[in-house]
Structures are given as structure tokens and as C-alpha cells.
């Protein structure tokens, strides 16, 4: 497996970046911007209940310098390309993905796929709101949480209607019972 060794893809950050960029989101798109790359991998780590990558709770919640540095390295190595504000895999990156896939368990791949399906087509505000609510510790140093939380009546139904949260979570995030939440939808739909 020359590519894994040549580019140090056995590092969790590099491996996950390559794999995340190889997967399709809800809109069948693979490309990802920097915010969604950080959030998808943070969400994946939350699902895995592991800390293979160092994340800090900063202004935009959980972000990772480690991820950022490794992304830049992958761009320099020609495995990832920046097109406008989005990152995409190059042909070489695609070959690396094929080498990497068998190294990960089915369940690991499923969780990463799920994280991308959950987040990548959401706009920035929906993504941030979702992640702040999902992992409350990331609210701590946030410069955006308060402003987004004030609009929870907008974001929670939107996330529910897009299938990113169930009615139990939606009701919990709004501080109402499930029936009240569902009734509020039936009157607006």
C-alpha cells in the first residue's frame, strides 16, 4: 500500500479527511467547505465516542488545528484540491481512498457516512446550531451560539423537517413536549 505509507494516511486526521471527501451527501455531492469538514469529523468523533483528533471549543464551536494542518498537507501533496471555497479529492486522492477503505470497519465507515449525510447539505447556521445543541460543551466559547439559540423556533423545525433530528430531540431542544411540537408543525404545514 504505497499511498498510505507515502502520505502518512495512517494518521486518523488524514485518513478521515480523505474518506469524508470521498462520500456523498444528501444532495449526492462530495465536495465540502472547511466548516463542514471540521463539523462532520467532529460529529463522527462524537458518534465514535473517541478523541483520535484534537478538537478545541473555539468561536465556532468544535474546530481542530490538527485537522486544518493535515488538510493543508493533503492539498500540498496533491491528494486534495481546493476549488473555490470547497475541497475535493483529486484522482490521486481517489486512489488513496480505495487503499484506505479496507482499513476501516464497516461501522466506522457507516458513522462517517452518516455524519456527512447529516451535515454537509445544511447551511452554516443550521450546521452550527445542530452541533452546538448536540454537543453542549462546544457552546462554551462560542461567538454564535446565543444568536442562533434565539432563533431555535426556526432551526429546530427545519432540522426536523430535513430529517436530521427526531421529534423527541426536537421537543427536547425546544423545551416543549413532543405533542406540542408535532401540533405546531401540523398547523404550519
Amino acid at each position, binding site marked *: 500500500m504505497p499511498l498510505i505509507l507515502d502520505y502518512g494516511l495512517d494518521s486518523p486526521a488524514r485518513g478521515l479527511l480523505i474518506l469524508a471527501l470521498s462520500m456523498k451527501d444528501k444532495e449526492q455531492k462530495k465536495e465540502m467547505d472547511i466548516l463542514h469538514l471540521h463539523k462532520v469529523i467532529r460529529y463522527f468523533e462524537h*458518534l*465514535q465516542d473517541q478523541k483520535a483528533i484534537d478538537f478545541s471549543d473555539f468561536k465556532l464551536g468544535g474546530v481542530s488545528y490538527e485537522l486544518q494542518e493535515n488538510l493543508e498537507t493533503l492539498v500540498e501533496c496533491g491528494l486534495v484540491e481546493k476549488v473555490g471555497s470547497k475541497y475535493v479529492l483529486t484522482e490521486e486522492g481517489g486512489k488513496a481512498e480505495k487503499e484506505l477503505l479496507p482499513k476501516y470497519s464497516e*461501522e466506522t465507515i*457507516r458513522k462517517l457516512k452518516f455524519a456527512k449525510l447529516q451535515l454537509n447539505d445544511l447551511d452554516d447556521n443550521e450546521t452550527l446550531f445542530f452541533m452546538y445543541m*448536540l454537543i453542549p460543551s462546544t457552546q462554551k466559547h462560542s461567538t454564535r451560539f446565543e444568536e442562533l439559540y434565539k432563533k431555535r423556533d426556526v432551526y429546530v423545525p427545519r432540522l426536523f423537517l430535513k430529517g436530521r433530528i427526531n421529534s*423527541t430531540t426536537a421537543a427536547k431542544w425546544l423545551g416543549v413536549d413532543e405533542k406540542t411540537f408535532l401540533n405546531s408543525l*401540523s398547523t404550519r404545514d
Partner: protein
Amino acid sequence: MNFIFDTSSAILLFEKCNLRKELLKFSETNNLYVPTRVMEEYIEGENVKSSDIIEFQKIFSVINPTLKTILLPYFNNEFSSGEIWVISYALGNPECCCVIDEEFGRNIATLFETQLTGAIGIIKELKSQNIISDNDLRQLKAKVRKSGFYLSKKLLKELDEICSSHQT
């Protein structure tokens, strides 16, 4: 065929559409299950009488699936919603089809590649097996809309299509 129902799908068909006698007939040739959690959610609902519960249990067999812990992270480690129990059962019983209408639960069922349908899919089955009467089918759409029960635009459209294909 075996079907395991999530709360909103069971309530929509049993309560809001009032397809009780049709579901009872359907249950003669199909196994219709609800997990204990769904039964609890049904009982917690508005104005549920003991006679309703008896009828509900004539149609749906209440089962107590083993929770598949592999699902927990996807539900943020909570197991109070009906769909985690529905999908848990279907994972252990691949011949069983999940009946889920909430998009999130459907996404998880799809991710785990279980068989999946929704309340509208069951209505289609009732129609294809000539269990649902012409009169009921005509009134169904109005009944659902009048009930105020939340149904996504996509599902309402599918319901429209069944009703229209019947009328033409």
C-alpha cells in the same frame, strides 16, 4: 409479511385514519407488531380509552425487542423514541419491514439497510389487497388533513396519488 410499526405510523392509521377494521383484516394475513415503547406512547396519547387499547392490541402484537446498542450513537444515546426499538427489532429480524414515517428514523433504517415502508405504504398494501373500501379511500385524504396530524408534504403527495389513482 411481518411489519413493525413506529408510533406516528400506527397512530395515523389506527386513530387518525380510523382504519381499524381494515388493519384487523390485514393482520389476518400479516404479522403487525409494535414495540412496548410504541404501545406506551400510544397509551400516553390524548383521549385514549380502554376500548381503544383493546382494539389496538387485537391488531398489533406488542413485543419487547432487544435494544441493539449499535444504534445508540445515532440516537445520541437515547432510547426513549419508538423508532430505535422498531429498527432494533428489524435488525434482528431482517424479514420484518419497519413502518416509520418520521424522516430521521427512515434515514437510520435506510443507513442500516432494513426493509422500510411508511403509513402510506401500508395504505397501498390495503388497497392492493382490496381491504380498503372505495368509500374509505375517497375520504381518507380529507380525514388525514382534518385530523391536524403532522404528515410531511412528500407523504401527503403520495397519499394524494393513491387517492387519485383510485378515482381515475
